[in-house]
Every structure is written in structure tokens, then in C-alpha cells.
């Protein structure tokens, strides 16, 4: 290996959704000069949507991504609700959408924890890469792997029952929902519910115990102080479907609260950087340098005041106690926070399935027509914004999307740089385990890179070492 400046490339990053690469530039003393997460996909969905009829949007936007289509479906529906003047949905419509959303959280969080990140947590970051994968989990922890699949399947069945299909459903329509939940559908879903809640409870314990037992190793890994943002209800309660923006500093000071969803662009702005297709959002008041923030499970637990379900609230209190009630800035704590959310979704599904409003027949409302609408929702990966303008012929004339992974763009880049500086600075031989730590820090955010840039990923892993002139010094290829 050459002794001059080197550029390390991890491409694509594995066990994340979509296609990105990491480059790390080392100087002649092998000190990290620069480390970046590059998003190498581009779709241009916002442009593609222009000219389409507004009623089509909640269905169309699901094609942004097959991973979290429900978030786009519901967020677009909320924006279109505003345009059609549906400011207050019926109880049945609201609760059907809520059930759909919690079904998605359950399936998405289960997939990530059990099958994408658990190999790192259960085998260790330096474990043999031949073992540190989903097959290794199936071999060593088959019951855990099975639970992961069945939790995800259950979440998908909730989506099927509420949206009509597991992928790209049509449930949410402008002003409401196109179906209720039949008694037969409800009874089918109730059959496995007790088991689902029990497994969700167990996995919170697993995530908590893992985090606390390994806190010394986890606390610095890709961690840094940051602001956090999410929507919360007016009383500060955690809510993934409806609420207003709240952001706090790393120390817990409120930066913004009860921000009006329809004028989100008064409090947030987006910066473009030439080396990435993803934009960099920031809080206007703080500017692009200091205004970046984190979203997703960790941020949601940091900004909310309480959960309205008992098991998740008890788990949140345990989580908050570790930092004395102040925001937690440990990147790897995303996993524990994510599992508390999974438990909350299981509990909420339980409550909703016992609510007779789901069998109501009052499904749609209308109101005074507007030419613009914004929907904000908490997607599994963080706050999601859909903003549309329409003309008098009901055609979309403008679309702006800020997807969750975009908000975590700056934090993921900081996490990559932090890990690179902590583990690669001055090191003569760079091991696979060192490079895996870079990926571990990215995986904590559960990024959906396809979604964030809006294309289909190719998933083999190629790691290349380049010298200062760009010549490839070493190359490894592995299957994803």
C-alpha cells in the first residue's frame, strides 16, 4: 500500500436501503482529512409529479419507494386534505389512517432491527464478515430471526387491511379513507396480537440491555451533540401521524415549538451541496452551519414529553433516565429508541383494533378548496414533508418533498467523519471491522437512500483504496 495520501471508498454501503458510498481521504500522515457519505442515486420525483391530477397523488407518490410507501401515501393525503378543505377527518378515517401508519412502523422497525442491524449488535462489529449477516442470525438466533419476519408480516397485514394492498395501497383518499375495517378483518388481526405485543416487549428489553451493557463502546461511536426535531401533539405527546414541529438543542432547550405545518418553509430551509444529490435542510433561525438537526426515533424520544401507551411510556422513562432527562445524543441509542417505538405501535394497534370507530361508515369530508397544501408526518426514519400547489384544473404545479433521510444527511456525514477520525486516524492497516464501524454508524439512522434521492439500488459491496492520483491500490468485493 502506498505511503502517500489515500482515498478510501466504501461503495455501496451495505445493509441500508438504497445505494450510497462513503469516501474517506487520508493525508500523508494517515490522518483523516475528509469523510463523506455520497448519495449516488437520482430520481427527480418532484418534477415527475408536476401536471398529474391531485386525486392521484396519494397513490402515485408511493412509487417513490417500495420500503416506506405508506408514509408517502399518508403524508401526500394529508397535504391533499388541506387542499380540498378537509381540516377535520371523521373518526373512522382518522383511526384507519393511524392504524395503517402504526402497521408500517411495526414492519419497518422490525425489518431494520432484526435483519439489518442485529448482526452487528449480536456478533460484534469485528466479527467474521462471513458470520455477521442475516444467515448468521438465522443460524445462531433462529427464534429471533423468525420473530422478525412474523412481526414484519403482521405489520404488512395491517397495511393490507387498511390500505387494500401491502404495497401501494389506495386506502387514504382526499378528505378521508375509502374503506373501514370489517369485523372479519379485525378478528383476523386480533388473533396474533397478544404474541405481537409480547415479542415487541421482549425486543425492547433486548435493545435496552445491549445498549446499557455496551454503553462504554457505543457512546462515542459516531456520536456528537445535535439538535433534534419531530412533530408532537399540542400537549407534547408523541404522535407519528399528527402534530406540529418541535425542535430542541443538544441540551434540551426549545428551539422551535408548535410551528405551523402550512408554513414550515418559514422555519426550515434547504441547502444544496455539489457532491451529493441529497439536500441539506436546516432551521432558518440558526443558519446552515448550526441549523442542522436529527430526526427519527432518537429525535422523537428526545423532543416528546410522553407516550400515551403504558408499556412504551415506562420504556421511555427508562431511556430518559440514562441521560437524566436531557436529550440523548448517542447515535447508537437510535436502536433502543426504535424498539420503544415498535412497542408503542404494537400497543396502539391493540387499542385501535378494540375501537368500534373502525367499523364506522362516515369516511370522507370536504370543505373549502385551497390552491396549496402541506402534509407533515413522522415516517419510520423521521419527519417527512410533502408540499403541493395545484391549479384550478386540479393539476399539480409544484411539489417539494423533504424526506426523512434528507434531514439526517448532515448527521450521517458527521457520524461517518467521527468514526473515521476515531478509528482510522494514524492507523497503518485498515481492517474490515474498522470500515464496518463506519457503516454501523450510518445504519443506526436506518437511511433509505433511494427514497431520499428519489432509484433502484445495486447492492454488491465494493471497497477500493485509491492513492492520491486516483489509482486503485486495493479492491475487495463482497455480495450484499
Amino acid at each position, binding site marked *: 500500500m502506498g505511503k502517500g495520501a489515500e482515498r478510501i471508498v466504501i461503495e455501496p454501503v451495505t445493509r441500508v436501503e438504497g445505494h450510497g458510498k462513503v469516501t474517506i481521504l487520508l493525508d500523508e500522515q494517515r490522518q483523516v482529512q475528509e469523510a463523506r457519505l455520497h448519495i449516488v442515486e437520482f430520481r427527480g420525483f418532484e418534477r415527475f409529479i408536476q401536471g398529474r391530477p391531485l386525486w392521484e397523488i396519494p397513490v402515485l407518490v408511493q412509487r417513490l419507494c*417500495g420500503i416506506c410507501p405508506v408514509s408517502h401515501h399518508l403524508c401526500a393525503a394529508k397535504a391533499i386534505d388541506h387542499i380540498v378543505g378537509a381540516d377535520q377527518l371523521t373518526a373512522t378515517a382518522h383511526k384507519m389512517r393511524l392504524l395503517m401508519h402504526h402497521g408500517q412502523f411495526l*414492519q419497518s422497525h422490525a425489518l431494520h432491527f432484526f435483519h439489518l442491524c442485529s448482526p452487528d449488535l449480536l456478533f460484534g462489529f469485528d466479527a467474521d464478515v462471513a458470520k455477521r449477516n442475516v444467515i448468521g442470525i438465522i443460524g445462531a438466533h433462529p427464534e429471533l*430471526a423468525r420473530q422478525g419476519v412474523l412481526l414484519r408480516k403482521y405489520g404488512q397485514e395491517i397495511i393490507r387491511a387498511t390500505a387494500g394492498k401491502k404495497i401501494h395501497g389506495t386506502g387514504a383518499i382526499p378528505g378521508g379513507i375509502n374503506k373501514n375495517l370489517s369485523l372479519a378483518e379485525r378478528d383476523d388481526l386480533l388473533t396474533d396480537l397478544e404474541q405481537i405485543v409480547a415479542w415487541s416487549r421482549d425486543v425492547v428489553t433486548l435493545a435496552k440491555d445491549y445498549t446499557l451493557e455496551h454503553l462504554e463502546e457505543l457512546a462515542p461511536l459516531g456520536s456528537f451533540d445535535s439538535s433534534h426535531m419531530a412533530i408532537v401533539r399540542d400537549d407534547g405527546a408523541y404522535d407519528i401521524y399528527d402534530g406540529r414541529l418541535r425542535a430542541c438543542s443538544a441540551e434540551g432547550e426549545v428551539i422551535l415549538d408548535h410551528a405551523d405545518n402550512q408554513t414550515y418553509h418559514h422555519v426550515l430551509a434547504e441547502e444544496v451541496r455539489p457532491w451529493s444529490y441529497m439536500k441539506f435542510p436546516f432551521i432558518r433561525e440558526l443558519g446552515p452551519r448550526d441549523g442542522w438537526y436529527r430526526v427519527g426515533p432518537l429525535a422523537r424520544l428526545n423532543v416528546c414529553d410522553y407516550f400515551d401507551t403504558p408499556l412504551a411510556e415506562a420504556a421511555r422513562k427508562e431511556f430518559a433516565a440514562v441521560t437524566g432527562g436531557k436529550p440523548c445524543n448517542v447515535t447508537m441509542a437510535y436502536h433502543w429508541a426504535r424498539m420503544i417505538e415498535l412497542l408503542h405501535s404494537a400497543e396502539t394497534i391493540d387499542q385501535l383494533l378494540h375501537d368500534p370507530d373502525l367499523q364506522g361508515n362516515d369516511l370522507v369530508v370536504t370543505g373549502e378548496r385551497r390552491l396549496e397544501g402541506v402534509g407533515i408526518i413522522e415516517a419510520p426514519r423521521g419527519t417527512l414533508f410533502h408540499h403541493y400547489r395545484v391549479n384550478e384544473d386540479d393539476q399539480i404545479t409544484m411539489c417539494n418533498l423533504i424526506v426523512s433521510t434528507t434531514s439526517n444527511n448532515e448527521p450521517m456525514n458527521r457520524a461517518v467523519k467521527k468514526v473515521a477520525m476515531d478509528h482510522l486516524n494514524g492507523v497503518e492497516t485498515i481492517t474490515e471491522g474498522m470500515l464496518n464501524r463506519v457503516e454501523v454508524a450510518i445504519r443506526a439512522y436506518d437511511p433509505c437512500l433511494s427514497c431520499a434521492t428519489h432509484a433502484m439500488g445495486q447492492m454488491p459491496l465494493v471497497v477500493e483504496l485509491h492513492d492520491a492520483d486516483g489509482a486503485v491500490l486495493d479492491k475487495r468485493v463482497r455480495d450484499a
Partner: protein
Amino acid sequence: MKKAPRRLLVSCYGNLSRGDDGLGPRFADALLERAPEITVEVGYQLALEDAATIADYDIVVFVDAAIDATEGFYLRRIQAEPKTGFSSHSVRPGHLLALSEQLFDARPEAFALGIGGMAFGDFAEQLSETATRNLSAALDHFLAWYDRSFCSQPDIRVSAQHLERGVWALGA
């Protein structure tokens, strides 16, 4: 001795917005028009939890657009294909068969029905002319295969419960 019932699942997947990639879902629509008793799953792509779904069946046919169907379409037997890692953006039928075996101790017979397409690159909601022809030929071939395998045997019986669920059962 009574034979165990054979349960058939047809799993069709693809993206209706990507031209001929939508062959799978369009096959599902056409199949259900002509044989509504068959259990059909339709998806944008295969997903991990489909391993649990296929574990409940004896025979699974995966239907997808293909770029290597030189005769217009193919119907091939496929085997489990263990994989060390995966992305939910890319799950192949063989991966699901392996997962189904590893996690649920289930080994359904499996076939891939690949239907030849030509145009995948652009946003388009219509099939190409070639794909439309291939779809029609593949459907006829599948129905003939289905009829031979499931409907034409003298000992066929369809229980009321299975009919209701859209599952044919065979047995003495």
C-alpha cells in the same frame, strides 16, 4: 390413504410505473379474470415476510418480468438460494425459499414464470407490444399447466373452505 391437499400460490411482482416491469402484476389481473379460484399475491417486489407466506403452500409460482426469456416466456423449477445478506430492495425467489426452509421448516415446490419484456428504463404505465404478446402466451401456457396439474385429474375435489379462500385442494 388420503392424500394431503396441494395448495397453490401464484406470487406476481413488479412495478407498474416502469413499463414492462409491470408484467407480474398485469399477469395477476389477467389470471384472476380467467381463474378467480387461484390464490394470487401481488407486490411491487418480493419482501422478507413473503417467506412466511409461501411456507403455507405446497406449490409456489413466482411471476416476474424477464430479460432472458428468449422464447417469450419460461416456466422453470427453482431451488432455495441461501444468501448471506439482503436488501429489501432486492429479494429473489430463491432467497425466500431458503428463508422459508430455515425459519419455518417449509419446502414448497417452486417455479419461476418469467415473461419477456423489452422496455424497463422509463416511467411508463403501458406494456410494450412484445410484452403484451408474451403475457398472453404465458397466461395460456400457465392455465394449460394449471389445468393439467390441478383440474384434470379424476380424483380432484375442492372443499368449500378451500374454495372460499381461493385454494384448490387435491386428494383422494
